[in-house]
């Protein structure tokens, strides 16, 4: 026995969810590397969707630049940390006070206030370390893409991401002090992530975060005319730390009673009530018959959620397959509407690249007017053009947008009326981007493989969730 264990509470906290010191540090570095790599991979996934609505809606992650990879990283880190906190909740936060781990330590001479600060520091230090290493990995990997390196916006992006992670860390800490059950605390961590996103939208954080010029000055993050998010987050963090300190110190003064683990079985049909001998009032402490209704509700909700997710994903896949199998003359129509992914710039700005367009299927007697966009067939090819002139049973149609260096009028066609299969009624740009994504390898995995795995292992997942409860 050569190794002497010298543990302090801080060292114990630094190990957090892992079992060995060395393993713990290694895993933290591995997490940081993973985060950097996953952000880099996500950037490439987004790059495959360049020709979609995403390029206009979220240019901050679509443009080929350091700004995009780092922006993706700070969001991926936030999601990663939320999941990490949910999974390792018991080890990372104050549920150990409710498990009376602190009771034992206090009996052995430890001080609750020191334990609180050690816990907080270890959590923030770990978050800081993983986040920083991951950030550096992302920047390092982006260097290989040979984009122009602009240093000025990196500190602002770094700080913005770090604020989110510190805020969710402290919010999770405070929930762990006020929530009695682990399941509820996990829900609260998830909701706190949603609240942070809502707060960022409301306080204009995303506006400045997507602005590459404003982000070049770190002071803009603190300028209230741009966004109040970071100042508000700092105030909240200080306030929550203070509340955590008081509440944890207060909780640690008591032995925490944890029914039902502290309550041995009571025979069926027997209730335990506390009767106040002075007033005669009864309070039910334990009722075996009532036990489990929450569990049933949880089981029903989780099963329903799983079924809805699987069914939606499968329905979406069927929809994509139908669209992909559409052939001229045999277009798939759903309740008289032909969905069609438009993969050309010829009808811009009315229809853009990779938009999901909808055409009403028409019969030969449907009146087609000039100015309408039509879907027609010629030589077994499908065309989408705008009607310029209607001449009896023939229509003259042309595209809206000729690419540069092409000859205008080259696509002008005379279309017999019977060749028209549908008239344009609208488009959905986001659904188009989603179908575009679903046709990529990552999209296939997400929409086909994940539901299939969920379907196959649904029993095991349900059993795991029950066990967790």
């Amino acid at each position, binding site marked *: *026995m050569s190794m002497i264990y010298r543990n302090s509470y801080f060292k114990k906290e630094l190990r957090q969810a892992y079992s060995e010191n060395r393993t713990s540090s290694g895993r933290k570095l591995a997490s940081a590397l993973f985060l950097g790599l996953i952000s880099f991979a996500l950037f490439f996934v987004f790059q495959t969707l360049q020709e979609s609505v995403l390029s206009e809606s979220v240019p901050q992650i679509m443009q080929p630049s350091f700004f995009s990879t780092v922006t993706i990283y700070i969001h991926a880190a936030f999601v990663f940390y939320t999941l990490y906190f949910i999974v390792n909740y018991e080890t990372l936060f104050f549920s150990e006070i409710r498990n009376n781990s602190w009771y034992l330590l206090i009996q052995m*001479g430890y001080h609750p206030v020191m334990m609180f600060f050690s816990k907080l520091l270890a959590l923030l230090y770990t978050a800081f370390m993983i986040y920083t290493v991951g950030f550096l990995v992302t920047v390092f990997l982006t260097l290989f893409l040979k984009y122009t390196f602009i240093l000025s916006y990196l500190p602002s992006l770094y700080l913005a991401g770090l604020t989110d992670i510190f805020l969710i860390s402290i919010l999770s800490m405070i929930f762990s002090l006020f929530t009695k059950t682990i399941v509820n605390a996990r829900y609260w961590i998830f909701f706190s992530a949603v609240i942070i996103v809502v707060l960022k939208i409301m306080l204009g954080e995303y506006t400045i975060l997507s602005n590459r010029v404003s982000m070049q000055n770190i002071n803009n993050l603190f300028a209230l005319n741009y966004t109040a998010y970071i100042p508000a987050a700092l105030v909240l963090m200080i306030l929550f730390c203070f509340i955590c300190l008081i509440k944890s110190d207060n909780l640690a003064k008591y032995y925490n009673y*944890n029914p039902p683990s502290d309550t041995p079985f009571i025979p069926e049909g027997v209730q335990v009530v506390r009767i106040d001998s002075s007033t005669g009032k009864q309070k039910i402490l334990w009722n075996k018959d009532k036990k489990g209704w929450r569990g049933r509700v949880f089981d029903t909700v989780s099963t329903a959620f799983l079924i809805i997710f699987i069914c939606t994903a499968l329905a979406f896949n069927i929809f994509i397959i139908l669209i992909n199998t559409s052939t001229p003359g045999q277009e798939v129509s759903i309740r008289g509407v032909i969905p069609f992914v438009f993969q050309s710039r010829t009808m811009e700005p009315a229809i853009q690249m990779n938009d999901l367009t909808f055409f009403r299927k028409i019969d030969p007697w449907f009146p087609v007017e000039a100015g309408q966009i039509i879907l027609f067939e010629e030589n077994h090819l499908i065309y989408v053009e705008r009607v310029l002139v209607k001449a009896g049973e023939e229509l003259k149609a042309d595209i809206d947008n000729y690419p540069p260096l092409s000859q205008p009028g080259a696509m002008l066609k005379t279309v017999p009326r019977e060749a028209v299969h549908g008239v344009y009624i609208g488009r959905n740009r986001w659904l188009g981007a989603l179908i575009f994504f679903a046709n990529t390898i990552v999209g296939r995995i997400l929409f086909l493989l994940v539901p299939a795995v969920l379907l196959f292992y649904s029993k095991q997942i349900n059993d795991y969730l029950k066990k967790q409860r």
Partner: protein
Amino acid sequence: MPHIAEHVVFMENVSSGEHFLTSGGSPRRVLSNISLLMKRSEAWGITGTSLYEIKLLLEIMANIRPYDSGRCVLIEQGMPRRKRVILRHVFYIGNSQMIYNNMNVLEYLMFVTGKLQRNQVELQEEIFELLIGIGLGPISLSPNNLLTKEEKAVVALLAAVYSGSIIIVFNLPEYEFDPILSDAIAKLSNLIRKMGKTLILGTKSCLLIEKASTHSAVVAGGKVIYSGTVENFRYQYDHVIVKIRDKQALKIKESLTPLLPGYQLSIKNDTLMISGSPERNDPELIYKKVLESGFIPELMEMNPKTVQNAYEELILEHDLPQ
């Protein structure tokens, strides 16, 4: 010189506010008029017919739960009004979740004893030897998350040994300790008593009481139906004098009944139990009568007087369900 309290737990007519309530029945106090006196360096095994009664009694003793009436005094200092508040002199173990899962047993024990002003090398050696000494050597380097809840509870008890608390309340009557763990608890109990502390065990295992306790209390129907030394309990209530194990136990019983007037003969698991009152307690006579009956039993032995038999007798005496 500070006064060293001799009476560590004093309960007088303590009744709980908790009541059992069955549909159509009137409420019955879970604990009613409990009186107990526990002294330093004693190990008490509290058992009974209801897990909830045992658990609640120990919770009241440890100031975890309030009581409705009566008087309860700890180390001659009274009982705080605020419940569940941490008392330095009472170390309460009510579940096994209190130990950290991301350490091994020895490491955890070194961690919790980190605030003792002791040389770490010597302390680790001492704890390691103690673990081996109580039979927990094989799990001393096992990660805590791989331990059973019973093993975790014993680790927590071992930590309590190193605390400054005079009273250690081990309130886990719902746990089932295997013989190895029972022996470990027994050895820790000896150590606790040698240190001048008091151990209070809540258990349904008579064997654990026999191994680890000097005193015992039996709670049934909300009342203490026995309290005193384990030895007295065994001799007072285990009336079985001789056990005869034979396939023909029933025939032997029929033959012996007229030969041993005043003795009770009963059969349990192919074993004929011959019991007698303190006045009729002669194994030699029984032996002679067995020979007279003409049977040569497969096995005949003097009853070693067990807590289990004494408990069963006591429960029968009070006409209670086991």
